[in-house]
């Protein structure tokens, strides 16, 4: 059971954003999608998660064809959080997270549902502000509240577009460790779009590298974190250092 993407293309107003992408995202573990701006990373994620209709091709998630499967069934299988999340309404953190249970409870939460909600709140360090309104939080706290919501959805597949958005260093590291724990201890399949190649290198099992709407490389961090590979993706030379067994790209100078 994997995420299978077959010959997926998508264009907006004559402009091709995704060009015949095919890949298999393995079951379990963390897969990071990297690539320069405009490579089609977010588009790929929103097509896999049926937020946007496929242009052509097919996607199946855990054996479910996303075009033909009931949306609520899909919502119990995979959760997606996009990059820009603007909430115009006032909801408390606890209410927001509780809506993650909607596909399961249909609005009538059981004791187990509520327990899952509290657990997600605790995982994201949100307990002290659980009764605050989301619009009263800082950007980083808000981002964590949204992630707690998709976590409460308790799905096998978790798709996150730039989950480190708005998070400081401490919370970024905590977020990646949490995702690692979800993958290792609970067998979740996590797909993230990340900009920082070093987070991708240190925490993922698989890296997908995209450029100009195409998938150009797929492999383990060790395979992708090579100077030649990264030049191919980003058009710049990135020195690779090995620190404590992790391959770190130095691209600041």
């Amino acid at each position, binding site marked *: 059971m994997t995420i299978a993407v077959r010959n997926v293309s998508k264009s907006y107003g004559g402009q091709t954003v995704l060009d015949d992408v095919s890949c298999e995202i393995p079951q379990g573990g963390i897969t990071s999608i990297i690539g320069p701006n405009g490579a089609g990373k977010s588009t790929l994620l929103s097509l896999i998660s049926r*937020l946007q209709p496929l242009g052509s091709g097919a996607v199946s998630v855990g054996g479910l064809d996303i075009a033909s499967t009931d949306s609520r069934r899909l919502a119990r299988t995979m959760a997606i959080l996009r990059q820009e999340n603007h909430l115009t309404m006032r909801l408390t953190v*606890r209410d927001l997270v509780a809506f993650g249970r909607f*596909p399961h409870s249909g609005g009538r939460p059981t*004791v*187990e549902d509520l327990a899952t909600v509290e657990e997600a709140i605790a995982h994201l360090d949100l307990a002290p502000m659980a009764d605050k309104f989301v619009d009263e939080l800082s950007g980083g706290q808000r981002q964590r509240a949204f992630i707690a919501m998709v976590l409460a959805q308790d799905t096998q597949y978790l798709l996150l577009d730039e989950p480190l958005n708005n998070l400081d260093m401490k919370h970024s590291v905590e977020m990646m460790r949490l995702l690692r724990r979800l993958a290792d201890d609970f067998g979740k399949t996590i797909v993230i779009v990340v900009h920082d190649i070093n987070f991708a290198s240190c925490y993922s099992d698989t890296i997908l590298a995209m450029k100009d709407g195409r998938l150009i490389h797929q492999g383990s961090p060790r395979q992708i974190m090579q100077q030649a590979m990264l030049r191919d993706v980003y058009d710049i030379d990135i020195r690779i250092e090995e620190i404590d067994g992790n391959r770190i790209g130095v691209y600041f100078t």
Partner: protein
Amino acid sequence: MTITAARPQAPATRSQARHYAGLAAAAVAVLALAAGSMFVGVSDVSLPALLAGDAGTVDIFWISRVPRTLAVLLAGMAVAVAGLIMQLMARNRFVEPSTVGTVESATLGILVVTVLAPGAPILAKMLVASAFALLGTALFLAILRRLPARNTLLIPLVGIMLGGIIAAVTTFFAYRYDLLQTLSNWMIGDFSGVLRGRYELLWIVAALMLVGLLAADRFTVAGMGQDFTTNLGLNYARTMRLGLLIVSLISAVVVTTVGAVPFLGLVVPNIVSLIFGDNLRRAVPWTALFGAAFVLICDIIGRTIRYPYEVPVGMVMSVLGAILFLVLILRKRNA
């Protein structure tokens, strides 16, 4: 993440109990206010005379006072709830059915029936008004989808412009057919004409509010936006259509029976949102209660301020609503 153990949910249930107790207390207060309002008016209706069974008093009470109070309560609740749902659908706090073209479209609908079939029963007028309200609101939402960016100010402005255009068309035809006088009856809400036999269609809005309450979670989810809605496995377009139907029907029914009730759908949901937030499960009952209370108070003021004459409730609401709205905006800026 698996569930470790079902932990006790004491805080949630306690706050829920407190919430229901608060709602019950507010409902009692509104009912008391409603009961009191039945003894305000030109003809003297006193409780002793009523209890003594004085024929004239009993007649006025059942033919005029009770229907009027019921109409105030129903219209107040429904218009406020329609405003709340409209704000969630447009994802903007500064819209309500009377600022996005819904009410103007309903008025145009009534005018069209009045011109084409002057003898049509009120139910037919209401149906045509509903159809027009649906079309007008759908047009507004369609324009919203095509706006390049979701600008907070642009959305209400587009609504006001659309409403202005529809109102201009309505006024033009009302002028041509010499119906301007009749038109103002629908444009300015007034409960003084409410009598037994002339308000009962308003009960339709009670059913619509119930639907809104039952679908509260769906509307809350839809209010988070299309992506969140799809992620949670809900059909966004279908939820929007349901909201569109509720908002349009409530507006059309209220306009045909008592006329337009301005500001209510704007002010009340904003006040409720500040205090209780926008989780519709909580917000719908509170919005309904606040809406009823607001119209009741305005109606009582309208009946007493120039006693023994009456000022249309729509006028009182415009003044009071505008003041409240200003206070809200200024408070938000200071916060």
